């Protein structure tokens, strides 16, 4: 089937079998390999991208459902202020080692920062429960997100 979607602000028309999921479409057809695949059944969070403005599992959206959707992958955040702050904070806090989980972590981290500006450590950990990291033990990731939350609260007051 032919589907048209917007990826990182650019319209794209691709031919795909209906059984292709969005992650394969992004990686295989559009060569956006920043989106990673782990479990392909919704559990690990590695494939998380933004679909129509909200984080979603790209392994669980098959091609037909993408028709007309607007998708933002890790490649598409550019100079987005929250993402810039998160990148710096992830680097400073050693929030990644192999980097496999990082694209999904960043998409979810950005959602936490914007949706839950008052989140404390317990809430950040709860919100991160759907993103697995096999390297870091999470401490650096949690600290990186808490750091961005704190600096935004500081800037707002």
């Amino acid at each position, binding site marked *: *089937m032919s589907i048209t979607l917007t990826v990182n602000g650019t319209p794209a028309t691709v031919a795909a*079998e*209906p*059984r*292709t*999921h969005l992650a*394969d479409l992004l990686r295989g057809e559009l060569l956006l390999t920043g989106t990673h695949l782990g479990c*392909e*059944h*919704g559990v690990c*969070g590695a494939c*998380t991208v933004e*679909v129509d403005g*909200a*984080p*979603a*599992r790209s*392994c*669980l*959206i*098959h*091609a*037909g*459902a993408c*028709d007309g959707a607007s998708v933002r992958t890790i490649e598409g955040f550019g100079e987005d202020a929250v993402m810039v702050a998160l990148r710096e904070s992830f680097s400073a806090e050693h929030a990644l080692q192999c980097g496999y989980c990082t694209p999904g972590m960043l998409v*979810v981290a950005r*959602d936490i920062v914007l949706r839950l500006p008052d989140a404390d450590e317990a809430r950040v950990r*709860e*919100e991160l*429960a*759907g*993103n697995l990291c096999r390297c870091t033990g999470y401490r650096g990731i949690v600290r990186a997100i808490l750091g961005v939350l704190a600096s935004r609260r500081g800037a707002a007051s």
Partner: protein
Amino acid sequence: MKPAPFTYARPADWPAALALLAEGARPVAGGQSLGPMLNLRLALPERVADLRHLPGYAGVSMQGETVRIGAGTTHAAIEDGVVPGRLGEILAGVARRIAYRPVRNRGTIGGSFAHADPAADWCAVLPALPGHAIALGPEGERRIPLAEFVLGVFETALRGDELLRAIELSALPPATHFGHWKFCRKPGEFSKATACVLATPGAAPTAVLAALDAAPLVIADASALLADPTAEAARLVATLALEDPWRAALARTALRHAAEAAR
């Protein structure tokens, strides 16, 4: 690419959706349960019918004291307070503990209820609430009491030619007490034992025990459970004759915690 081949249809209106269903298409809403089943080839539909673009599929409307929640309303919308009042508060608290936010952004209340996974949260909570599941079939809408909707593991009162259209619930007074407890070793994991207790002023309290590998146990009058949570939880769980002692212990604990939280 892991699923077996299937074709995709996006019905523009409800008659078209029902026609696709009659031709054997498998409905898909958020795809958060069907998606994994397709990827694991546990589901092998020849055609899927995407319900997400049907008019009025998502969203909440009020008709007097009745709240009508479109089956396509996402867990995330409910978490964010799309349902007003005390009822909305209760549902938001349940929604927040379903899976993870990226799953809640797509997964729907109707998809979850129609799927009838014994460990699913809506299957453990909706049967305690006063209201109906609205089924839409070739002859129009049919109302199924929420307590009678889930019949077994992945089995509901929906007929093969029907779709779940909406959930209708009665608004709840501000003084309503609600307790909900589930056992997960990690947030967002499927529960090993779930219970909820609803105590509405002026009505008999109700309770549900779920995640039983069977239909949920609906307790139409939970007064005894509220009066003595420990003893009554033990009595209720004993009647189920659960094989595994750990499962019975978790079920007792779930009922007791839910009852204590609803007092």
